[in-house]
Each structure stands twice: as structure tokens, then as C-alpha cells.
């Protein structure tokens, strides 16, 4: 039997109401949470974000049944008095709204029918809460008559008159809903839909608020909140219904609607009516942006989150670090960090690098020779330069020297002299006593991790580029709790499989952590992005993009430090490419970095996009970005416009060549004429 992984993805929707309460971790300060939901505000809100940003969790936390579980012994009335709002939760997928799309041969107003159905479901939620309140507040006076009189005035249908209590009314509502389910089913077979709607849109889920206010004196001012989760599951026409309810609901009920970034399909109201406006009828919050912002100390949150998960799984936590407050358990210490001291000597030693051929030197010599082949003694020159740059240096310094040579080798520079000067700077840098803050030390700081990645990749044994360290895992999660769970969940699985207890025993090794990171990347790419055709296309485009970034990272003349991002002009995108890129953004495969301001000089909109670092291990890419690769029109097309993908391989090869050769012009050291 498979045992529980404490980092299981159990999505917020999986949690029973009870578990949500116990696993709630403050994302930051309570103020931040409230600013997201703003339960007391009378303006409806759209709360959008990628998978795993905690939207459902937030919604359900505010819903009446879950609040009720937090205070099992309190009366319903007392709870509402304290909370000052009543929120009802509905998951959009639970409505199976696809049934209400126009289908062959049955010509009715499906949009209207959907609207009626939605209101019945929302009202059911309200009535369930009200029944609980009545049940648990025996000392109080509830006026069912007043309630029913108020609500019945806008409804019609059989059985309505016989409802005398709120319970009976609830049953009536449920019955209406079932009637619709039945009728829609039968319509598929018979070709006819026979039904009379018991009310018109807006006549149930909004007035019920008024009825509620009359039902009990203490409820007179309590606002009614409808929490709808995952609105992308409603079609455009169905969203028009929700928009109408938002528009006309203002004083009666407000909505908090969650969805993916791309969830909103229209702002129009019913029958292509007026549009709701941002800031007027509704406000929008993007959760990803909040999570990525400075306000949320995600590294700290991550540690608390991990501890909470382990505790929930009844795993004993042995203190492993001392702080001012005593011995505590610090999850970061369960993971080995990549030892980068002494120029990564420890790891490089283990990798048994360099391989005897030292292929990168070979490539460099070739490149240099090719650029100077028309000169006498070109081969010896090249080899001599290579030796100057690499002899007696730690491997990573050798690589840095070669890289610096390639960068500085421009027209006018004397290759030999350049090599000598770099050699001198390198020597000076290696010795801690003579090391100073100069271009060389800057270069090392920037390029070290890329060069180390190259060494890992080139090593014959070993598992390629290493991904390890708790802080790095948190970075890869990009502020998304679910991403963090994915990585840690994989780490736990792998450790269990290998018999390693990294929580209480030895630290998780670099190799196993790398395996976890690779698995997570694979998971996101292969299994977790299942949104049909659009996501398939987006994934293919991202793969092409990533191979450009990878080619960059592993060339002798790395064009940009830590290449994880790319930049381009928005005008250069074809319509189709734009759509694919937008999908990639929607599915969180990439993130957008700029604020969309046009370039000062050209007035063109420059955009900067970064790959989701969770995917990095799949292509051996870095997990934090620094520079960005600029993509021209041709490349953009080849990457994002599927039709152009045959050209892609050619373009990629060209880039590879560019980044691995020295141009002849650069090494032309014929004197320029006297300069001095």
C-alpha cells in the first residue's frame, strides 16, 4: 500500500472543510489576505491566478460551512454577528455547465436556462447555511413567514404555496433544480425540452438577500457573498449571466469569482448588453503578482508551510539548528547545498572532470584557428593562447578565462596580449590576498553558475547540471505553494524509494535533489498542463524557446548571463504567435517581466518574458534570470508560430554557430595606424 506523502498535492478542493481550517497557513500578514477577498466590500471581485496559487483555499476559508467548522459550538447567529458577512461557495465545475450549451436540434434559450440553474444552485447554498443557522440558534426568533413572503413574490411554480418553512422552501428549490437536470437529460433523447422556468434571471439569488434581512433582526445588515470558483469553466455566454448578476446585484449580493489568468471571456452582460467596467462594477486582483511581490516573504512562508505539512503528517521534527529562541527545526538544513567554495573544487573532483580531451579547450582552439587561419602559425598561436588561459588554473577559472577572451576579442585587440592580461588578472583573482573588486571578480560572480553548469554537463559520469538547496527549490516555486509541494513531494518519493530519511536522518544528497527537480520539470511539462490542444501547442513552442536558451548557456561565448529570459518587440509578433505566447503565459509556462512601457526612443513595446524556473531542469537552464536573449521577428515566428517550425532548426544552428565562433574581423590585429 502506498503511504502518504506529507507533500501530497491534495488540492484545496480535496480538503474536507475540516482540513482547510487546520492546514491554513497565513500567506503573509492577515491584512494581505483580507485585501484579496475583501469580504466586507460591496464591490464584486475577480481573483485570478495560476494553478496552485491558493485561490480555492482562500474562497473556501471564507465560506460559511468552513467558518462554521472553526467554531463548532457557537450558534449560527453568533457566528454571523462576528463575521459580519455570509458567504456561499460554489465550484463552477460542479455545475457541469457544458450541458447548457446550444446543442443539436433543441432550440431554446440555453443562456436563460443556465442562468436559472445557476441561481438555484446559489440559492441552495444560501438556504443550507440559513437552515444551519436556524438549527443552531434555538434561542433566537426567526420569521419564516416574512422570509417566504419576500422571496415568493418574484417566483412562480407548483408547490411554492405549500412551502411554509424555510426547510420546505429549500426542498422546493432543490426540486426545481432536479427538474431542470431531468429535462435537459431527456431533451438529448427526445429532441424536445419541456420546462417552465420558475423565475427570470435575477429573481432568486439576489432578492434572497432581502428576504434574509427580514428573517432575523440581527441579519438585517449582513451582506451576502457568492464565492464562485474556477469561472473559466463557464462559456462566454454563461459568463454574461454572471456579469449581469454582478451588475444588478450591487446592494443585494456581491460576488468573489476566481479563475485562471485567462478565465474572463467577456465583460458583457446578458444578451450582449453593456459591459461591466474594472473599478466600477468589479475589481480584479492577480494572485501570482501578489505572491511574487516583496510583501510576501515567500522563503519564510515556505519554511512554515513545510513544517506545517510535516506536522500534519505526524512526522516528528528533530531540532537541527540553534536560534536565539532555542533549538528549532529548520527544513532548509535537510537539503545539501552545492559547495561552491574553492571554485567548486569538491563537486568537480567527484565528477572526475575534466575529461581527458577537455573538449571545450579543443573547441576554443578550433574557433580561434578558424578565425586566424590565413595567418602563418595560426595553429600554434591558438594553442599558445589556449595554454595561457588555461594552464594551472582551476577548471572553472579556465572556462572563465576563455569566455572573457571571446568577449574581449574585438577588432583592435591583440589576441596574445589579451590572453596574457587575462592570465594575469586570473592569477591575481585566485589568490585571496591579491583579489580585488574589478571586472574579473564581477565576471566570476556573474558567470560562475553557468560555467559550473557547463562543467557538470560535460562530465562523462554524473547526472548533468545540479539542482539543489532548499532556497533554490523555493526560488523555483516562484511564490506558488503548489509548485513547492511538487518539488518536495518528488524529493520525498525519491528519498523513500532509496531508503533515505532526510527529515530526521542524513541530508538529501545533491544527486537525489537533482532527480527531484528533473522529475518536477517533467511533471509540469508532461502531465500537469492538460488543457487540450491550446496547451499542446504552447508546450511545443516553449520547448523551442528553451532550446535557444540552452544553446546560449552552453556555448563558449555565453551571450547573456544566466539566460532564462528573452526580450522582443511586441510589433514583431504575428497574430498567431501572439496567441500562442498568451497561452503560454496563461498556463504559467512563462512569466512576463516588464510593465509594458514603450521604448523611449523607438516607441515600440518591448516585452520581457521568462521561463517558469520549475521547467528549467528539463533543459539544464538556470533558475534565476539575469540577462535576456533578444529575439528578432524571424526567431519569434519560428518559436511561436507553429507553421514556421521547420525554419527553427536552421535558425537555432545559426545561433549556435554565432555563439561558438570568433569572427575573423575580431582577430584582425593588423595595426590601425598610429594611435598615439
Amino acid at each position, binding site marked *: 500500500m*502506498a503511504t502518504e506523502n506529507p507533500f501530497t498535492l491534495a488540492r484545496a478542493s480535496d480538503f474536507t472543510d475540516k482540513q482547510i481550517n487546520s492546514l491554513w497557513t497565513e500567506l503573509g500578514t492577515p491584512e494581505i489576505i483580507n485585501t484579496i477577498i475583501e469580504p466586507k466590500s460591496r464591490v464584486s471581485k475577480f481573483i485570478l491566478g495560476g494553478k496552485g496559487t491558493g485561490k480555492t483555499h482562500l474562497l473556501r476559508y471564507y465560506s460559511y460551512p468552513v467558518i462554521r467548522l472553526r467554531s463548532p459550538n457557537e450558534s449560527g447567529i453568533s457566528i454571523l454577528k462576528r463575521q459580519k458577512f455570509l458567504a456561499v461557495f460554489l465550484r463552477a465545475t460542479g455545475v457541469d455547465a457544458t450541458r447548457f450549451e446550444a446543442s443539436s436540434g433543441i432550440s431554446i434559450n440555453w443562456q436563460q436556462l443556465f442562468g436559472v440553474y445557476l441561481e438555484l444552485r446559489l440559492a441552495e447554498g444560501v438556504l443550507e447555511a440559513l437552515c444551519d443557522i436556524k438549527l443552531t440558534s434555538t434561542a433566537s426568533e426567526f420569521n419564516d413567514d416574512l422570509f417566504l413572503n419576500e422571496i415568493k413574490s418574484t417566483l412562480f411554480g407548483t408547490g411554492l404555496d405549500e412551502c411554509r418553512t424555510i426547510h420546505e422552501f429549500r426542498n422546493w428549490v432543490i426540486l426545481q433544480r432536479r427538474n431542470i437536470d431531468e429535462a435537459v437529460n431527456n431533451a438529448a433523447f427526445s429532441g424536445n425540452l419541456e420546462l417552465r422556468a420558475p423565475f427570470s434571471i435575477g429573481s432568486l439569488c439576489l432578492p434572497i438577500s432581502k428576504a434574509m434581512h427580514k428573517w432575523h433582526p440581527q441579519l438585517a445588515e449582513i451582506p451576502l457573498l457568492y464565492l464562485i470558483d474556477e469561472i473559466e469553466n463557464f462559456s462566454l455566454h454563461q459568463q454574461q449571466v454572471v456579469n449581469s448578476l454582478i451588475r444588478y446585484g450591487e446592494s443585494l449580493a456581491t460576488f468573489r469569482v476566481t479563475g485562471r489568468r485567462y478565465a474572463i471571456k467577456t465583460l458583457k452582460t446578458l444578451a450582449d448588453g453593456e459591459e461591466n467596467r474594472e473599478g466600477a462594477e468589479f475589481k480584479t486582483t492577480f494572485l501570482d503578482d501578489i505572491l511574487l511581490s516583496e510583501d510576501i516573504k515567500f522563503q519564510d512562508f515556505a519554511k512554515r508551510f513545510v513544517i506545517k505539512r510535516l506536522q500534519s503528517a505526524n512526522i516528528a521534527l528533530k531540532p537541527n539548528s540553534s536560534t536565539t529562541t532555542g533549538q528549532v527545526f529548520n527544513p532548509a538544513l535537510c537539503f545539501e547545498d552545492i559547495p561552491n567554495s574553492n571554485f567548486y573544487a569538491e563537486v568537480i573532483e567527484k565528477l572526475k572532470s575534466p575529461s581527458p580531451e577537455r573538449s571545450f579547450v579543443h573547441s576554443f582552439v578550433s574557433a580561434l584557428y578558424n578565425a586566424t587561419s590565413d595567418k602563418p602559425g595560426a595553429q600554434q598561436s591558438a594553442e599558445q593562447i589556449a595554454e595561457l588561459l588555461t594552464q594551472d588554473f582551476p577548471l572553472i577559472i579556465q572556462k572563465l578565462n576563455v569566455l572573457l577572451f571571446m568577449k574581449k576579442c574585438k577588432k583592435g585587440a591583440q589576441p596574445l596580449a589579451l590572453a596574457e592580461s587575462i592570465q594575469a588578472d586570473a592569477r591575481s583573482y585566485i589568490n585571496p590576498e591579491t583579489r580585488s573588486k574589478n571586472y574579473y571578480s564581477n565576471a566570476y560572480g556573474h558567470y560562475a553558475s553557468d560555467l559550473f553548469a557547463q562543467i557538470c554537463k560535460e562530465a562523462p559520469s554524473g*547526472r*548533468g547540471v545540479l539542482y539543489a538547496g532548499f532556497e533554490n527549490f523555493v526560488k523555483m516555486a516562484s511564490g506558488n505553494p503548489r509548485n513547492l509541494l511538487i518539488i518536495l513531494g518528488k524529493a520525498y*518519493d*525519491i528519498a523513500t*524509494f*532509496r*531508503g533515505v530519511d532526510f527529515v530526521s536522518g542524513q541530508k538529501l544528497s545533491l544527486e537525489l535533489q537533482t*532527480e527531484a527537480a*528533473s*522529475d518536477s520539470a517533467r511533471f509540469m511539462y508532461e502531465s500537469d498542463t492538460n488543457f487540450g490542444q491550446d496547451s499542446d501547442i504552447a508546450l511545443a513552442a516553449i520547448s523551442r524557446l528553451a532550446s535557444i536558451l540552452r544553446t546560449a548557456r552552453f556555448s563558449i561565448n555565453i551571450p547573456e548571463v544566466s539566460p532564462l529570459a528573452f526580450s522582443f518587440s511586441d510589433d514583431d509578433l504575428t497574430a498567431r504567435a501572439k496567441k500562442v505566447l498568451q497561452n503560454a503565459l496563461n498556463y504559467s509556462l512563462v512569466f512576463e517581466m516588464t510593465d509594458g512601457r514603450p521604448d523611449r526612443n523607438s516607441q515600440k513595446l518591448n516585452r520581457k518574458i521568462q521561463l517558469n524556473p520549475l521547467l528549467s531542469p528539463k533543459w539544464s537552464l538556470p533558475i534565476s534570470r539575469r540577462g535576456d536573449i533578444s529575439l528578432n521577428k524571424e526567431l519569434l515566428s519560428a518559436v511561436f508560430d507553429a507553421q514556421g517550425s521547420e525554419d527553427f532548426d536552421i535558425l537555432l544552428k545559426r545561433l549556435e554557430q554565432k555563439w561558438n565562433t570568433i569572427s575573423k574581423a575580431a582577430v584582425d590585429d593588423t595595426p590601425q595606424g598610429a594611435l598615439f
Partner: protein
Amino acid sequence: MEKILLESKIRTLINHAWDSEVTWAEIEAWLNNFDGSFLEKSEEQLYAIFAISRYMYFGKRLVREMLKSLYRDHFYSPMRQRIRRNFNGTLDHRIIDNAYTLELNSTRFIGVGNPSESGAHLLYYFRQVNYLSKDLFVDLAAALTYQVSRDRSEILYDIREKKITRLVFFDDIVGSGTQASEYLTPYLSGIKATNPSIDIRFMSLFATSAGLSKLNESKLFDGKAMCLFELDDSFKAFDADSRYFSTSPPWFDRQKMFDLTEDYGKKLWPNHPFGYKNGQLLISFSHNTPDNVPPIFWAVSGQIPWAPAFVRYHKQ
């Protein structure tokens, strides 16, 4: 890198298909058997781990499911459909249940081989998962009586309980079929002679095509031998059409795999380095590994030290 990819695949296999019944520690110990005696050590281990990634293992849960299916889909259901047909397609449960109970009670399930062998061993679980009465199970000796023929040339077997109308023989895996054939022929001819109308069948979980044919010969089960899974030649690891190695990565050289299996195999079971009668099967169950599987997978320390990947309780 390939080794790492394969390790990852095996982890998935173990967790998702093998119910975690095989542990990584066992696989690792087994990989260390390949110490570079024939090829470079890392190459040997790469081939070894590749073989594991293609191996078929059936854990306890699957074995029980097979036993359930054997009874439910190949005995119970067909018989009840036949009864229903005989009663003109009635759906009256009582009629069918009664008729079925009669049929079942006059049936006996018998394991092939002696009671300690795996066929008989599985019968215990067969009975359990199908909630059958123990009275339906006998071993051959208990089921039969015998007489010596008039001319003293042969022994004639007969069924002890006269109301028995059906015998169902059972085994887990049939290889070449010679063992079952040798074991059963004397009994079956006798029984058929004295009880010409008796229904004699054979059921197994797995059988090679050759073995099944042999069992279906007229002197044995005459067409009434069945198995849940038939293993044709494509299930022989080194057959030209082998499904194990037909789609393999570019670095894989089938000849090397063959040689490795043979070279180490000869050290472990000199006469049958590819498994009994050149079986070449790559199959194990949670309760045993058949000897038609090359010994490199299941041998234990004997002539040379050896850690098995899959356990087999080998008959000496």
C-alpha cells in the same frame, strides 16, 4: 545519463505497476552482481538495469485479480450463461443459482504437481478470493482410487466420489508443458476410460503457446485447456520478434545482452543459462519466479555469490 533515466523508469515501475513489492535495495544488490567479468562493469550494469525495465512482474494484487478472473470470467460466468440458455434465456436468479450450485458442487479443483508446488499453493488463494468451499478442492491422491488392470499392465484410475462430473486442473504457469504432461497423462487416460462423460479441464494463469498446444492434445485435455495469458514466441527475450527488445534505444546491442545473459547464466545454472528448456521468459510473480526465466534474475548464492532480483524457490 541513460542509467539515470532507467533508474527513474524503474522507480515508476516499482511504485505504479509493481505495488512496491520489489525494493531498490534489492535491485541495487542485484546490479552489483555484474562485476565486469565479461564487459566493462558500468556497461554490464547498464544492460542489466535495462533488462529490468523491460521485465514483467505481477504483484500480489495482480495475482489475486488473475485468480478472481479465472474463476469469474472463465468458469462461473460461462457456466451460468450456458444454464440460462438451457432454461430458454430465463433471468430468474433462483433457477440459475440452483442449477449452478449443483454444477459447482460436482466439480473438483485440483492443483497440478504435488501439494507443495506453486500450482497448488495458488489454489489456496484461488479459493479465498472466490469465496469457495474447501470441499471443492482435492489433491489427486485423495480424489482417485485405482485398480490394477486385468492383465496387470497398467493402473486404472477412477474417481472416488461418484457424483463428481467435472475436474478442473490448475497450475500457475505452463512452460513447455512436458512436466504437466508427464505428470497427468497416466491419471487422465485412466479416468477418461472409466468415466467417459466426465468433463476434464485445465486452467492456468500463463502458458506458452507450445505448452498450451501440448496440453490440448487429445490424450490430455483435448482442447479444454485454457490460460488467461498466452505467451507466444514474442515473449521469448531473444526471439527475432521479441517484444522485450524490439524497440530499444540506440546504444542497445541485442547480442551483448544475449552474451551477458548466457555468460553469467552458465555460472549459475550451467545447463540452462536462459531458463529451463531455453525458456527465455522475463516474468515473475510475487509468490515465485518460474524456472523458464534466465537464472541471472533469480539465482541465489551457490557456486558463486549472487543476489537475486526476483525471488524463486528453486527445486534442487
